[in-house]
Each structure stands twice: as C-alpha cells, then as structure tokens.
C-alpha cells in the first residue's frame, strides 16, 4: 500500500459508452473508500468536475493509472485517449467497449451517413421536420460553433493508443475490478498488455451439464423452455461460452441466458466470431453426415442476425472490423 503522502493519482474517462462502466466503478460500494485511502482522483468527468484544461496541465505520466471506458467513435474520444495516454503511466481499457469496441462497434455494419439517417431522420420516434443533423462547423449568431467529428468507424482503445491493462466485461463485474485494484495496491500486477481476467473460457466455469455435443436446430432463448441443468448449446441456443474468456463465473448461463461474449476471446484467438463458427461447425448436425448440406438453409434460417450473434461485442476488433465493400479498397485496421 502506498504511503498517505504518496497517494496514487487515479483518472477515469468515458468515451463512446453507455455510462454503465462508470456505474460499475461506483458499484464497488464501500470498497471504493479503501481505494480512496490510497489514491486521489485527479480526473473523472462522470463523477467530478475536472476539465480537459486540468488534464492538459498535468505533467507527462502524472496520473498513475487511468480507467478508460468506451470505444473511439468521435475525434474527441480519440483526442482525449491520446492525451490520457501521454499523462498516464498505466492506461487501463475498462469494459467491453474500450476493450473491443463493444455494442457501439456494431454500428460498423453501417456507414456514417446511414447511422445519421437512422438516428436523426428515420427512427419512428424521431421528430425532426427540418432534417437537422449535427455538423462539425456551423454559424451561430455571427460566430462559428464546432463539434467533434463523427468518425467513419468505431475503434477500440488499442486501435488508437497503446493499452497497458484490460479489465473486460459489459460492465466488468465488481469482483474483477476489486481484484485488479488489489493487484495495483499490492504492487502485484501481471506484465503490461495483460487482460486481467481468466485464461480459460466461460464453459470452464459453467456448471451446466454438457453431453450431447450436437445441435440439429438453432433456437432463440424465448422460443423454447430452457432446461436449467443442461448446456445451452446442447439445447440449440447459441451461447458464446466456448470462445469467450473466463472470469465472470459464467454469470449469464447461470441465470439461464446464453453468454454473449462480452469478455472477448481468450488470448490466442484471432477473431471471436470466426472462432465461434469453428466451434459451431464441429457440433452442428445438418442432416446425416455426407448429406450434410441438404437442409443447410433451414438451419441457417434460424440464425437471423449472425453478426449481432457472433460479434456482439467484438466487431470493431474483428479481422474485418465491420462491413466491407466487395471490390472496394477497404481500409485495414
């Protein structure tokens, strides 16, 4: 533990996120007081009144550690990520969005103008008769107003700066955050670059019984009565457990919900969604072997949203990173 006079300086920031990760930090409840014994908060827009100017005034690496949540959607997100990188010794990607782009990353299946049309014009609940959309620059009362640019694609934090540690999850469970804080306060951190969670998969922590090892039909969870003891995949429900990093105590499958993959893949997996296709293909029984593909379409028909299913949280960090154009000069990550 650090001496009181020599407290850790801690920062936290939200980029393109829902705010849940900031709540998750507060979810430590009274344990956050232990943290404050050994640390000073030096920047945390969600909870305190620091401004970007304060951040700019800090020396290089003045912050010991910063919890960065949210993906990189706007030029502001990117600018602050770079600024925080400069001012922070240990930069932590906190939560799925900073780790892999998260749910906002699914917008990478549409281009910027489609996103704007949906959000500002076409949504049934949107009332915008003048079709106003945010502009980077606009005239107002004789002056000029500026807004951050909306980037073409969502990136994860690692996509713009070097990340020292990742605490995964949507949001990270309090035990995981607590464990990470203990590692910091006890000066017991793993090598930089580590994802501070399990090294196995969710299946490894799941108590459901797995024996059938084959699927002949996909079901969505609301369509069938789920057996509480048996593996969800065995019941035809797509559960991302086999390709998702452990560390959550299989909390979704324990609650009768399939794993959505929020911890991202284990270290050696290149692309979480592709890896899930590998696993699924191994247990999929389409007709008899040999006549395997006759009923392929029927089986796949019950897979209405493959990207949303296999890449819920990892799309922005996948090999393609989002929708591509056949014959196009798509930009690589």
């Amino acid at each position: 533990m650090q001496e009181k006079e020599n407290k850790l300086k801690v920062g936290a920031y939200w980029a393109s996120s829902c705010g849940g990760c900031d709540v998750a930090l507060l979810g430590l409840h009274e344990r956050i007081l232990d943290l404050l014994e050994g640390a000073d908060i030096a920047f945390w827009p969600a909870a305190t009144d620091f401004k970007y100017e304060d951040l700019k005034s800090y020396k290089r690496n003045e912050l010991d550690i910063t919890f960065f949540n949210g993906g990189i959607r706007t030029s502001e997100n990117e600018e602050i990520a770079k600024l925080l990188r400069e001012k922070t010794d240990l930069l932590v990607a906190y939560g799925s969005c900073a780790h892999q782009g998260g749910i906002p990353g699914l917008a990478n299946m549409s281009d910027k103008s489609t996103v704007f049309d949906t959000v500002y014009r076409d949504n049934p609940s949107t009332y915008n008769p003048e079709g106003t959309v945010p502009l980077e620059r606009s005239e107002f009362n004789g002056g000029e107003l500026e807004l951050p640019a909306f980037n073409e694609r969502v990136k994860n934090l690692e996509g713009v700066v070097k990340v020292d540690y990742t605490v995964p999850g949507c949001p990270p469970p309090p035990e995981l955050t607590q464990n990470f804080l203990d590692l910091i306060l006890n000066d017991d951190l793993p090598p930089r670059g580590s994802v501070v969670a399990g090294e196995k998969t969710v299946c490894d922590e799941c108590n459901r019984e797995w024996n059938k090892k084959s699927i002949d039909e996909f079901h969505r969870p609301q369509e069938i009565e789920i057996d509480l003891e048996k593996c969800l995949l065995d019941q035809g429900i797509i559960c991302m457990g086999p390709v998702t990093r452990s560390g959550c105590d299989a909390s979704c499958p324990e609650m009768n919900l399939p794993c959505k993959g929020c911890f991202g893949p284990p270290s050696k997996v290149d692309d979480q969604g592709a890896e899930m296709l590998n696993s699924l293909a191994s247990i999929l029984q389409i007709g008899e072997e040999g006549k395997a593909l006759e009923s392929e379409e029927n089986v796949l028909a019950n897979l209405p949203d493959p990207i949303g299913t296999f890449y819920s949280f990892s799309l922005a960090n996948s090999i393609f990173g989002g929708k591509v154009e056949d014959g196009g000069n798509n930009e690589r990550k």
Partner: protein
Amino acid sequence: MDFEPKLVGFLCKWCSSAGADLAGVSRKNYPSNLIPITVNCSGRIDVSYVVRAFHDGADGVLISGCHPGDCHYNSGNYKAWRRVALLKHVLEEFGVNPDRVKLKWISATEGEKFAQTIKGFTSEIKELGPGPYNDARERE
C-alpha cells in the same frame, strides 16, 4: 491491365495436395493465380484463416480436401463442409460475395480435376472482380 485474381488455396495434405502434385507431374496446364497452402486436413482450416486471407488481399479462397468418406482423419472434411456453409452465410453479411469461397473434393488421383478447378475458379473470380481488400495488389 487485365485483372489477375489472387487466389489462396488450402489443400489437405493427403488428397488435394497430392492431386495438385499430380497435375504438375502430368504437365497439366492451368493458370498460376493460386497460392497453395498445404494443411494436414481440410478440417484444420479455421474460419479465421479464410477471413485473414481476404483481409490480406485475396480475391478468392479455395478449400479442398478428400472426398466425403475418404478423409484421412475420418471426419475432418465434414467439419470443413459445415464450416464453409456457416462462413459463407457470415461473409455475405459482411458484404463479401460468398462465391469467393469454393469448396472442392479432390483426390490424389484427380490431377485433371485440380487443373480444371483452378481454371474454373480463376475465371469465376475474374468475372467477380477484385475482392474486398485489393489495395495489397495495387501497392506491388
């Protein structure tokens, strides 16, 4: 200049790779567009290998293994078969034409079939035009 497709082929060691060798020793003529990669079994081919190949500039990917029932490891080719079915479904969502992936069963005795497959696939991809990440070729 004419568009010359860049094709990547994952060939299983026991059948298709031997079939490719046979095409060679029998002096069959076929286009030189394919970069062959020998793997132990078609069941060894990860979906991510194919996606990576496209990302790195391939215009088409051929996956070739032993005929159904003939896999050296019994069932690897059935796995490949199902993987390709799922992969095509997902590729289409990503915006990539699923015809850019071809699955073919080629045995060690089918040198002619190998040559024909490469001919056919090359002209199909020529027809389709460049793949999703074709800047790699332009930089050359």
